[in-house]
């Protein structure tokens, strides 16, 4: 009886959360949906044609965005790995202060420091460039990478690595054959988080990129702002779909790489 009640509440809550997505799907195929109809009165794929048509140039922007955010995700993981390790396994002076400092971009408002960064990037020629935008995104993604990987390292401990070292493995071998496979779920999570944060960015990309670096978020924004429900729904679904495909691809890739000869890994 009580279990049924718990499940009912849970499903109701999740239903409320998911319901707007269903409305979004309807809008993505609606040609017309006048008030006060509960369902669209005509269906169309106009937005999808616009999205996929080579003439509109949407697909290259989507690919460019995926590339940019993949670079950000990759760099986030590369930079976060040693930092997270240091925070998880070492005791040193000023550790707490450093930890709070590296996580602080999660709390400092992006908008407030983005304008200062922009002014400075103009001075040194990084404004309006791919790498300028990547750097700005890194500021937002690094804290997530570090937080996730520190948690993973802490949960794992370093005993298995020590065992490998005792059995005669060098540090590079240990790292490649023991550490990385063991923390691969954490690598995937950190990569996903960084990708999502970067892919979703509008304000920073728009400000630092100065309209020269065009990402998918920047195509989507005006549709939402302008109130074109059909096109914004189509672009939103394409956005979510791209993220999901990227996530599954990354997971599959890492799994394949880990499975190769890693018979102790489950």
């Amino acid at each position, binding site marked *: 009886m009580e279990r049924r009640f718990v499940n009912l509440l849970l499903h109701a809550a999740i239903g409320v*959360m998911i319901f707007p997505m269903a409305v979004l799907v309807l809008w993505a195929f609606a040609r017309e949906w006048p008030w006060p109809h509960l369902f669209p009165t005509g269906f169309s794929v106009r937005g999808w044609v616009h999205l996929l048509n080579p003439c509109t140039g949407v697909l290259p922007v989507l690919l460019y965005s995926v590339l940019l955010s993949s670079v950000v995700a990759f760099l986030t993981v590369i930079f976060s790995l040693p*930092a997270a*390790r240091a925070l998880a396994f070492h005791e040193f002076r000023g550790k707490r202060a450093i930890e709070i400092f590296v996580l*602080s971009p999660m709390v400092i408002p992006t908008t407030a420091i983005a304008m200062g960064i922009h002014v*400075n990037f103009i001075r040194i020629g990084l404004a309006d460039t791919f790498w300028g935008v990547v750097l700005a995104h890194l500021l937002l993604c690094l804290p997530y990478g570090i937080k996730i990987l520190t948690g993973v390292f802490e949960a794992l401990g370093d005993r298995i690595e020590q065992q490998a070292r005792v059995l005669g493995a060098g540090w590079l071998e240990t790292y490649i054959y023991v550490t990385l496979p063991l923390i691969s779920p954490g690598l995937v999570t950190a990569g996903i988080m960084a990708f999502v944060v970067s892919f979703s960015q*509008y304000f920073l990309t728009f400000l630092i990129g100065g309209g020269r670096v065009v990402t998918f978020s920047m195509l989507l924004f005006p549709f*939402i702002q302008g109130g074109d429900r059909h096109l914004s*729904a189509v672009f*939103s679904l394409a956005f979510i779909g791209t993220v999901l495909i990227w996530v599954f691809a990354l997971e599959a890739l890492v799994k394949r790489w880990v499975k190769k000869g890693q018979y102790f890994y489950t």
Partner: protein
Amino acid sequence: MNGERLRPYVMLAPVLLVEAWLIFTGIHTAFEQSLGHFPAAGLSGYSLKFYIAVLKNPDFLKSLVFSFYVAFVSSALAVILGIFLAVLLVHSPRKENLSNYLYRLPIIVPHTIAVLLVLSILSSSGILPRLLYALGLLSAENAFPGMVFDRAGIGVILTYLWKGTPFATFMVYTILKNTNPGLFEAALSLGAGRWEAFYYVVLPLLKPAVIPSFLFLFAYAFGSWEVPYLIGPTHPRALPVLAYTYYVSPELSARPYAMAVNMVMVAVSFILIYIYSRQMARAGW
């Protein structure tokens, strides 16, 4: 020996350099310009007059109050709902079922799309007024009370809530599923009521999830530009929107006002970081 001691610093160096450089230049430039040192616009010398002008401006004060209110209400509600959902998830008989994945969907959806969802449900031509109309509870399209672009910020709050609740749920659930349910049972068998046991036994255990969730959600809602820009009222504007309006003003002389507003937001975030570090030190995590 010495090299061994330096190692953690070397490992942290790349991250520290990137972050320190960006944060420092971001804040330094904003601070300098907020004091009126802006040679490109023909402004030099340092003064506090822009801060004084901003702080005396009633629009700024309204924006400050609005941003605080939206951030507080949305993050507090998200955390409360998050605890509630996490408890439900833990008590759910099938823990690894679809709902465990579905509730996390909003985490990968950006805030701009969350705005679109709220618009398609709550705007005057949204699904909710249509449903109410079909049920005979609403007489006409414009009879629906304004919930987007409204001064009470309901649209903004609901957008943050839709995004924030799964985040809080995830944080709380992670701790909850690893705590011993026996603690709750023990409190019950010692004579505590269900709510008492929850309040005095379970809630303190959840503190390491609840306080950071609240602070992160608050900070995000306080400092984010997209949501209030798209769905918020034009009066009062949220602080980031106000700063942006000054920043893109064709007159460069308005720039110091933008930076002064930014510095106020940075100051608020420093207070949040201070609270976070105090909590971390006290709880030992």
